[in-house]
């Protein structure tokens, strides 16, 4: 909301991240990305949030998921922040559709990997 109010930009993280690497006007995008990391860090270091106790998952899984998330967010022009939060806020039917599709795909994937296979 602050991004839209101050800069007139939608805070879609995947888009800002990618354009921050390759696009024009990189400085504000990189500042936003740095802020995200800084915000995450301060939640744990300053606010004192306990570290996630996630069991270590295999690295090939992280790699595969990373590739899918990277490619999927570019092809589908957005991730959770851009579509579900900003897009639905703008009452964009595209974003509502994308949100329903990726949540369903996520649910299906968890069902397959955690119940049928594991």
């Amino acid at each position, binding site marked *: 909301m*602050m991004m*839209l*109010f*101050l*800069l*007139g930009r*939608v*805070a879609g*993280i*995947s888009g800002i991240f990618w354009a921050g*690497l390759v696009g024009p006007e990189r400085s*504000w*995008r990189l*500042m*936003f990305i740095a*802020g*995200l*990391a*800084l*915000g*995450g860090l*301060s*939640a*744990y270091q300053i606010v004192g949030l306990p570290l*996630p*106790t996630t069991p270590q*998952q295999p690295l090939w899984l992280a790699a595969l*998921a*990373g*590739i899918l*998330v990277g*490619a*999927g967010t*570019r*092809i*589908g*022009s957005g*991730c*959770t922040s*851009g579509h*579900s*939060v*900003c897009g*639905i*806020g703008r009452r*964009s039917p595209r974003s509502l*559709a*994308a949100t329903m*599709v*990726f949540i*369903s*795909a*996520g*649910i*299906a*994937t*968890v*069902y397959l*990997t*955690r119940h049928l296979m594991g």
Partner: protein
Amino acid sequence: MKNLAALISGILFGLGLALSGMTDTSKVIGFLDITGHWDPDLIWVMASAVLVSVGLTPLILRRARPLLAASFSVPASSGIDRQLILGAVIFGCGWGLFGYCPGPAIAALPLGDTGTVVFLLCMILGMWLSQLPVGKPDLTATTKQS
């Protein structure tokens, strides 16, 4: 000034993601696991973020221009096409597989977990791969056929 605004927005966003539990991959997977031990907590995170956005976005867009820029630059909405759905399916699979979407992965990066680093590097690779010209004619071809 623009950079400062972006930095502060980012910090707020990252703080919110971490505090709400989005940076905890097992919590995200628990949220998506509706057929098993469903952990519905994150629905409140999403619902409140969406509500704030639904409430404030129209008010902001009603202004003539943003505070620090010449004009608003919001995505032009076009129809729901095959590419959007395909991308969302691919993204959803990756999300369910590991429990990270892009924002939380970046916010969790300072914790220095190897899995997070690998995820983010491969996310860049995936973004780059999807931009390759080889992939593009295929996508438009499938769209035209429909």
